[in-house]
């Protein structure tokens, strides 16, 4: 079992701070690195993979620094977000070249095993240039897995995959994690992380906003105050009824209807139909107005 540790890591580019005092410890199993675009996920992954020196703090793999230490790649595999791949090679040649560069004893067998893992054996002899986006991604994962690494880092691995490929990749990551490997993948999509990993690290604006069990963090996210836009046949009467509800923190009457601030998402959405029915008010429109991922993350930072 391998352990990746970030201790007080910051990274800045001139005056811009990309990652700010992040500490985390990754052990075996699948961990999701969640955060909106531009949060610093890729910078964190690149520092873990030894492609970026931390401006402050240390990044280690089993106690060894990852920066300037090519020996760590014996135990580490990396799949970057960028789609770059040798278009002129077939997937088999690509995986074989990776195995040879790792100086594996049986590179041909290792290449075939890696291609089987990502279900690419049928197309393994075609040039990668002719592949779909999802197939190229799988070829890159095969090359990263060819030496059976203890640690696998993946930057947005589900990008460009169709639902079936996505499911297969999720199963693959899951099984690799269950085998005791340390898997970290980044994503800006909550549902992807939810389906694959039990542990999550949430990064917002370069800072670690939340860390730990996904269900706990998810509960924090769903229990946060929500803002809804409501339109009904009688907005003022509905406002009076709603303000008496414990799940409602406040109601604004506007020209376009009501803006309701609910303290609890579940209680409010269950209570509203009952109130409307009892009062004889027809609800024409109910829209959650702050459901963007950014607002969820912002709440986590403030929490």
């Amino acid at each position, binding site marked *: 079992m391998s352990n990746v540790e970030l201790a007080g890591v910051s990274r800045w580019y001139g005056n811009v701070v990309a990652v700010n005092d992040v500490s985390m410890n990754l052990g075996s199993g699948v961990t999701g690195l969640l955060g909106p675009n531009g949060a610093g*996920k890729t910078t964190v992954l690149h520092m873990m993979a030894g*492609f970026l020196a931390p401006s402050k703090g240390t990044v280690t793999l089993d106690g060894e620094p990852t920066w300037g230490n090519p020996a760590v790649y014996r135990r580490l595999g990396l799949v970057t977000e960028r789609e770059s791949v040798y278009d002129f090679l077939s997937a088999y040649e690509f995986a074989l070249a990776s195995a040879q560069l790792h100086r594996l004893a049986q590179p041909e067998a290792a290449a075939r095993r890696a291609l089987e893992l990502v279900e690419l054996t049928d197309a393994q002899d075609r040039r990668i240039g002719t592949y779909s986006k999802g197939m190229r991604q799988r070829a890159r994962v095969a090359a990263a897995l060819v030496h059976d690494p203890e640690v696998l880092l993946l930057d947005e691995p589900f990008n460009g995959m169709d639902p079936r490929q996505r499911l297969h990749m999720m199963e693959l990551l899951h099984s690799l994690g269950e085998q005791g490997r340390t898997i970290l993948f980044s994503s800006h999509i909550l549902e992807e992380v939810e389906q694959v990993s039990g542990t999550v690290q949430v990064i917002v604006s370069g800072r670690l906003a939340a860390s730990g069990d996904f269900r706990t963090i998810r509960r924090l996210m769903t229990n946060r105050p929500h803002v809804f836009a409501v339109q009904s046949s009688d907005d003022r009467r509905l406002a009076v009824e709603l303000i008496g509800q414990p799940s409602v923190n406040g109601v604004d009457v506007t020209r376009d209807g009501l803006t309701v601030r609910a303290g609890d998402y579940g209680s409010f959405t269950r209570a509203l139909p009952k109130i409307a029915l009892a009062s004889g008010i027809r609800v024409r429109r109910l829209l959650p107005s702050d459901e963007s991922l950014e607002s969820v993350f912002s709440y986590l930072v403030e929490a």
Partner: protein
Amino acid sequence: MSTVTWITARGLFGRRRFLLLFPLPVLLVGLAVLARSAGVDPGQWGQPVVYGLGLGVLLPVTALIVGTGVLGSEIDDGTLLHILTKPLPRWQIVLPKLAVATGVTALTVAVPLYVAGVLVDSVRFGLGLAAASAVGALAYSAFFLALSLLTRRPVLLGLVYVLIWEGLLNSIVSGTRVLSVQHYVVTLTDRIAPTALLDGSVSLPVAIVMSAVFTVGFTLLAIRRLRTFSVAGETS
């Protein structure tokens, strides 16, 4: 053949910029054949074709295209990461790439220069040009390969070196020739096969030592730079 050499060679021959290598050698040999078959005195066309076009344009431009192609293209498209994520000492990446760049450049340049040298003067002059241009290919390749790691615009800086430093400053300020690969090649050729066509403007020891300094110095610089190669986050 090492895997890095194989991937580098496949990548180089698989890219369109490889086609840029063909017009200049064809032009050089074509001009030499045309002038020779028209019976023009080699004293009139030898220097512009061999020195002006061959050593002044064909050699450095070929080395620039190939030297920046073997590493710079992989940095640009991100494929270099596939090699960098392997437990290889960085010299095992730089040296095969330098070998491919030097080999392809030397082959592309030495053959047409040999043909032109034979048509202009003699087989010895042709062999002298081929051997000296191979040395020049090595020094240029080490320089341009290192430029790929030192700057984001290696082709532009390489062109500035070839056109401004070697093409312009060398003819105005003679002291700048000490840092000119082109003049090392001229001196080496002149010593192997002395002719009236080429006149070495730096001494032989300077040409030999500086060729070695260019090659070793920029190769070590490239290895050192690759050890601390950074990849900035795209989403940050």
